[in-house]
């Protein structure tokens, strides 16, 4: 496998890991109601 393959692979895996991090951690798994305030901050 050539350099190009390795590069593409790293790009794809990197993108996938970033997407995982973003949607799971940052967006709290996009749970229902998280678009509004529910998951943003704790009230109490």
């Amino acid at each position, binding site marked *: 496998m050539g350099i*190009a393959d390795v590069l593409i692979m790293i790009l794809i895996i990197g993108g*996938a*890991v970033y997407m995982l991090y*973003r949607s799971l951690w940052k967006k709290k798994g996009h749970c*229902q109601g998280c678009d509004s*305030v*529910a998951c943003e901050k704790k009230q109490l």
Partner: protein
Amino acid sequence: MSLELGVKSSELRETKRKTITVAVAGNPNSGKSTLINAIAGSRLYVGNWPGVTVEKKSAMFEYEGSKIKLVDLPGTYSLSPYTQEEIIARDYLITEKPDVIINVVDATNIERNLYLTIQMLELGIPVVIALNIYDEAEQKGYRINTKAMEEMLGITVIPTVATKKSGLNDLLKAATEAAANPSRYAPKQLHYSEDIESAATFIQTHLNEHHSSLQKRYPMRWLAFKVMEGDSHMMKEAGLDIDISLIEQATKHLTRAHGDDIESIMADERYAFAAGLTREMVKRPEIRKMELTEKIDKVVLNRFLGIPIFLAAMWLVFKLTFDLSQPFGDWIDGATAGPLSRLAAKAITAVNGPLWVASLATEGVLAGVGFVLAFVPVIFAMMFFITFLEGSGYMARAAFVMDRAMHSMGLHGKSFIPMLLGFGCNVPGIYATRTLENPRDKALTALLLPLMSCGARLPVYVVFIGAFFTTHAGTVLWSMYVMGIALAILMGVIFKRTLFRGESPMFIMELPPYRMPSLRNLLIHTWEKGKHFLIKAGTYIFAVSIIVWFLLNLPWGVESKKDSYLGKTGQVIAPVLEPIGFGNWEAASALVTGLIAKEIVVGTMAEIYAVEQEEQEETTVSEDIREIGASFTAAVGDSIRNVFATFGVTSISAEEDDSVSGLRTVIQKAFTPLTAYAFMAFVLLYMPCVVVAIAMKHEFGTWKWFGVAFGYQMVLAWVVALTIYQGGKLLGIGI
């Protein structure tokens, strides 16, 4: 009265010109969220039971050139600081000082609602009453004299029907007008008995003299009441440190004369006033007929029939879900495996990409995501029925019926609300534990919640049921949910005896009347619940299927998937699963990736078992697209036929699609009905998904509870699967 108006400082008026903040407050289940949705076109969660909204939420919209921010508050019966809902609502009204309050009053229940209204008037913020659910009040034959109500309370009263969007324009006009002229719309206030008033004046004078800085922040008369009541939450927040003897001096003759504490005395007076007001304003018909709601409840809440009816209702839901959605699942599945993967491959050859990228796109993404997508119709069907049960009012009964069973074992009935939400997705359920006052109840509820079978587990059930239990599909599916509930009760009892000793307070839930949800609302809220699963498929399930593909194909050039990284991991874990019936590396690796989200279990299996597509005849792009369209039309027909079949015409045979049977045949080889059932139970129980873990961390501020949940669920899942497998083997069932 004029004192309170001092609250409106000039700076507040400045910001007001930009946006008018309207707080929507009122009793639980009076239609606040429905009203906001109707006005602003938002999609706040609505359900026919008290306690749906647990958190303040807002919706923005424009009205006659000005921006209006509507704030939905949790429903409360009073503004005393005893429940989290009350604290959230009260803190908002006091500290954020909205420009106007829309007090949503349930017209069928005026007396109880007015108690809160009276408290609200004391806050010195203009109030407009939305006399909501007016349609039902009229139906019952109530005649409400809104003019008299306006005069007695000194505020505008607008009859509304939020579900039919009627009265909204008048309401908005009244609200914006009141916000613009707060002094003209200052509400009247209840005059308590002389004793109370003079005590309040005494304290208020003291506050004005010694704590004059508070005048900017609080309505002083109200603050004086709070001091008299000994409201420590409020005093702490205001930073008030008043000599107890002073309060006693002001109130001692009162408590002595009435033999009660100040708070109760004042509450009594408010109740009396509300009752008097209601008597004057509302004319009820002389003869009261027994209402439909009461008739239904006589049966549904029956001591002996209650639980069987609940179980039967659930069974019907699962049966319908399965039958209705099966053809659509087959369709998406066929489309992703056949024409769509051909299209993907064509696209990649067209841009001249490397061959392995084509394999990643088809075997990885299309198999992984596509297989999860195949179950979106099932999930939507399920969410539709859940939404229907919520909207009709039956869910509240289910909670009531189960509560009676659970309370005897020491569990808190209020925990049921988060658990009900958990059937859609566990995550909102975790956030909803916020309403539980007692930290122990809160943690316990969060621990048990993952046992409620959420939508994400459906795909796993459906694949295995499709492979092994087609004749009893509904029943097997139902048994999974019942198993989850039964184990939650069992674990609750165990936890109560060990980790969480102590009594739970009694919880009394008000049962709403039955209502027919409108189709429009049903569809909107079904979409709101189900859309989450679509977003998931497009984001992290997509990401995971890519990673899984690499894990199955690395190290580079690996001969068989068994020797790949994922395969090796699976082989390490497999022996642990041996005694419970599925000690193969495929199942083990699918369970590992399923830790992210449970749908991924089937996605990974689809990737592992991705059967090489036999060379199909050459097709053109437009042929592929046409094929997708044609099979969709067929699926709609099948789905409709299936629903009729449910009601007893003929039994349905699951459509044998080539690609589906691809995975099904492999699974049929790898599992037996018995091991399949054990596997389903394991997936139900084995651990909360990562998103739930994050939600728990977020809600409790520590990983501790997730750790506990993880630990006990792993053990529970293993023990249950072991019991099923070994028990079944002994009895010779389904081997």
